[in-house]
């Protein structure tokens, strides 16, 4: 009885230490596994579901030259750091979202006549469209919301400030473009 009383009197210390451990080692591991912006490609996806770890693994099998890390996150990942998606290189967005945020996206060359346009420029490549009967990377992106049989159109877009879209901006490297093209070929 005395031991139980003692334990509950000191329980907060144990709980506090567990919390400290999680925060401390989470921070340390993030620091260790992270790579500088120039050596990583970050993908943010706004699909109903996402196999982020599996997709990062798949894309990480053949990294573009100079790239050390590929990170894939759902937008919900940025709940505590709303500025984080602004640092991403590639976005997988619904057509509506892409058109709403066109000012932040890089113009890209046309790949498909269904690619979304905004103010006369193409802002992304179609990755999934029910009307067009086209879908890529189904095994990693869940385009359909639970219980739904119809989905929105999804497009692959590029952050206009990315340093990995040389083909479009003329500076940096082409790692993000390379990865986006591989995304469109994934089963």
């Amino acid at each position: 009885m005395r031991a139980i009383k003692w334990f509950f009197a000191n329980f907060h210390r144990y709980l506090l230490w567990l919390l400290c451990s999680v925060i401390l080692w989470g921070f340390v591991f993030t620091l260790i596994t992270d790579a500088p912006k120039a050596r990583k490609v970050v993908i943010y996806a706004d699909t109903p579901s996402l196999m982020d770890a599996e997709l990062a693994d798949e894309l990480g099998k053949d990294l573009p030259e100079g790239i050390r890390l590929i990170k894939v996150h759902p937008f919900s990942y940025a709940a505590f750091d709303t500025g984080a998606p602004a640092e991403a290189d590639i976005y997988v967005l619904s057509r509506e979202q892409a058109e709403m945020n066109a000012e932040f996206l890089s113009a890209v060359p046309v790949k498909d006549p269904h690619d979304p346009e905004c103010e006369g420029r193409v802002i992304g490549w179609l990755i999934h469209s029910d009307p067009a009967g086209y879908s890529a990377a189904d095994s990693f992106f869940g385009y359909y919301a639970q219980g739904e049989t119809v989905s929105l159109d999804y497009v692959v877009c590029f952050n206009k400030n990315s340093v990995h879209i040389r083909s479009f901006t003329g500076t940096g490297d082409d790692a993000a473009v390379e990865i986006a093209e591989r995304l469109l070929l994934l089963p």
Partner: protein
Amino acid sequence: MERKIVELYTQSGLLSARRRLFASRIITLLVCAAALGICISFCIGVDAHNAVRRLVCAIAVSAVGGWTAITLRLLLISRFKRTAAHYKAVLEGKRERIEGAFSVSDETIRITGGVSIKRVRVIAANADRELSLFSSMRPLFPADKAAAVYSVYDFISAYEVERS
């Protein structure tokens, strides 16, 4: 009849309390160092594929190591620290001689942040009073045989017995 004084608190007792305190601190330090070493080893060679598994392992080792250290700190270090401080205070304090008959209570009183004590009732010729006895000293203090005691801050530090 001649009496002899039996000391309950000695310099060697203080030294032994300090040794125990030092040893418990070293053990706690080793536990912390071992946990930290293991956690650092998990950080070596970490990559995107094994990061999550290693992070979970590091958190588990860190938590268990920390909990062990907290337990050692609460159960051993603080106890030995209090004991050593108590010994030092009694050894350095001013002694008062009290004659009378003594009876020790069975109940142990735990003073928060202090040592655990037993109350000693003194039936003296002038006035009855109560003293304290460090509970670890209970087996060393034969209340029925003591003819007088020496107290420091109301703690019994020595007693007199008839030399047989």
